[in-house]
């Protein structure tokens, strides 16, 4: 589609730009033809209007001779096109003048018009070249805008994919260690092996299903957490205990899926697993007025490794996702004191059907 004709706003601007051009053309013609204002306006204004539209054809010339081509080809194409269109314009002007001559009783109008051939022709060529330049500019502009838009789209897509990957990621450590536990149980405790298989299948299925959603009620996320914990309890045995208190008032509050489960996973992996005797993970979900507060606490080895890069990345992910959903109204606090690590999430409780 033509970049100017397809867009009303652009067409309006284009025609507006032609107004001063038309005015200048009128003045030039008036001097040359030494005609009165009404006479010259009668000729110049329709001609300018006509040429405004004729010059839109410069687009096809620009398409036929893109800037990337050789200068010689560019120059020949453009000069041929401008000479041709200017000649056509002059001829059409002649037709106009001849057709209005008998009507307006202005003798010699066409003769005077013809004397202006050099000025009109030169004007026509210059204006056409100007129009061509404007079209080249528009084409380049549109193209760069498309490129920019595409790269933005790509960025958005990449970001979405990244978030999706982060959401759907199942820790390979967890997966392979669980499989190893099943392998160990098959001989010593076949029933236990079977139930661990079922628990693992349930967990994987649920996390795949939830990962595909945008938001889920807290209750569903907590069910996933429970299914995760029952597997980890088989792996860690007596070393892992869990205390939880969940306010049923929070059940319906919406959260991004796989928000709490990865935090519980971190608490076990970086908190409980490095402790010889293990410890207790505390999960507390309650209401604070309009907000929901999720508190997760785990002991840490005071002599353990200082930096836990994985935990930091997981928390950053949580922070990003909450910020995206609750723009500025979500708080993530992390504190570490006296061998305890604590994560506190606080964000507005929005229930299904309340989303603006």
């Amino acid at each position, binding site marked *: 589609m033509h970049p100017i004709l397809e867009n009303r706003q652009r067409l309006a601007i284009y025609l507006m730009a032609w107004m001063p051009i038309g005015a200048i053309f009128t003045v030039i013609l008036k001097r040359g033809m030494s005609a009165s204002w009404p006479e010259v306006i009668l000729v110049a204004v329709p001609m300018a209007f006509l040429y405004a539209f004729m010059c839109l054809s410069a687009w096809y010339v620009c398409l036929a001779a893109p800037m990337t081509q050789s200068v010689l080809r560019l120059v020949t194409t453009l000069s041929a096109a401008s000479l041709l269109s200017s000649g056509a314009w002059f001829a059409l002007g002649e037709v106009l003048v001849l057709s209005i001559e008998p009507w307006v009783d202005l003798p010699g109008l066409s003769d005077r018009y013809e004397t202006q051939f050099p000025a009109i022709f030169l004007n026509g060529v210059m204006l056409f070249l100007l129009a061509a330049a404007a079209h080249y500019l528009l084409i380049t502009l549109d193209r760069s805008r498309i490129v920019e838009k595409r790269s933005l789209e790509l960025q958005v897509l990449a970001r979405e994919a990244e978030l999706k990957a982060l959401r759907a990621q199942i820790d*390979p*450590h967890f*997966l*392979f*260690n669980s*499989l*190893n*536990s*099943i*392998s*160990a*149980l098959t*001989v*010593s405790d076949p029933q236990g092996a079977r139930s661990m298989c079922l628990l693992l299948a349930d967990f994987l299925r649920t996390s795949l299903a939830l990962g595909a959603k945008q938001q889920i009620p807290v209750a569903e996320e907590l069910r996933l957490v429970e299914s995760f914990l029952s597997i980890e309890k*088989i*792996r*860690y*045995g007596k070393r892992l205990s869990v205390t939880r208190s969940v306010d049923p008032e929070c059940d319906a509050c919406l959260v991004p899926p796989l928000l709490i489960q990865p935090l519980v996973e971190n608490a076990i992996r970086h908190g409980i*697993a*490095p*402790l*010889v005797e293990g410890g207790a993970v505390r999960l507390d979900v309650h209401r604070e007025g309009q907000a929901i507060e999720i508190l997760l606490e785990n002991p840490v*080895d005071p*002599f353990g*490794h*200082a*930096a836990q*890069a994985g935990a930091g990345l997981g928390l950053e992910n949580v922070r990003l996702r909450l910020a995206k959903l609750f723009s500025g109204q979500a708080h993530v606090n992390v504190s570490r004191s006296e061998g305890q690590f604590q994560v506190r999430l606080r964000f507005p409780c929005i229930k299904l059907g309340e989303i603006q």
Partner: protein
Amino acid sequence: MKPLRIVIADDEDLARSLVSEYLKDSLDLEIVAECRNGFEAVKAVTDLKPDLLLLDIQMPRLDGFEVLDLVGRETNVIFITAYDQYAIRAFDVHAVDYLLKPFSAERLTEALDRARKKIDRGESTAPAALAADARPPGTKPDRILIRDGGDVHVLPMVKVDYVEAQDDYVCYRVEGKRYLKQQTLADVETALDSARFVRIHRSYILNIDRLAKLELYAKDSHSAILRDGTRLPVSRSGYSRLNAMIG
């Protein structure tokens, strides 16, 4: 044939029970200890001098690499891991055998056979280089482990004032105490975080945070005065390294 004496170290009860179940019918080996964490593993290896250590990487207190670092190169080891990409790459590079959880009884037997051949040939693994390669790129250890008989000292890197070379040992100075470890100063230099530690002399590596001032000592040499008043020699190349760091 003399039975192979084996120590198993894994923090998960089920994982250890799986290995002993796999091995219960083998006559040519003996499980001499089962350890639930890195400390126990170091103690068991020191006390029992087993032929082979089956060592899980992820363990409380000390991880598998730290255990290997502490027990030294006289022990043969087969690592066990669920999923550690960098570690697995390092094992391949250093030709160290490893088992990926979950593994089969056949795979375990194969690893044991290979270990037995290696023991017969008298080969063993170099723990320091292996541990360095197994770490994710760009990270440095944040603590130093020093064995003192049956005890293990865990020294956070930030607390080290300076390290001094002493014959076959290096001496770590931490909060006024001295800890000796059999290591070369060059190994220490590569293991330490180069943003914090700088080699100021053939025999000294300094924690830059401890530096109080530099004094001209002789025509070509300087002295580093630490915050606690300790005076350390600074060589010419050490001086330019120091200057590059302080900027």
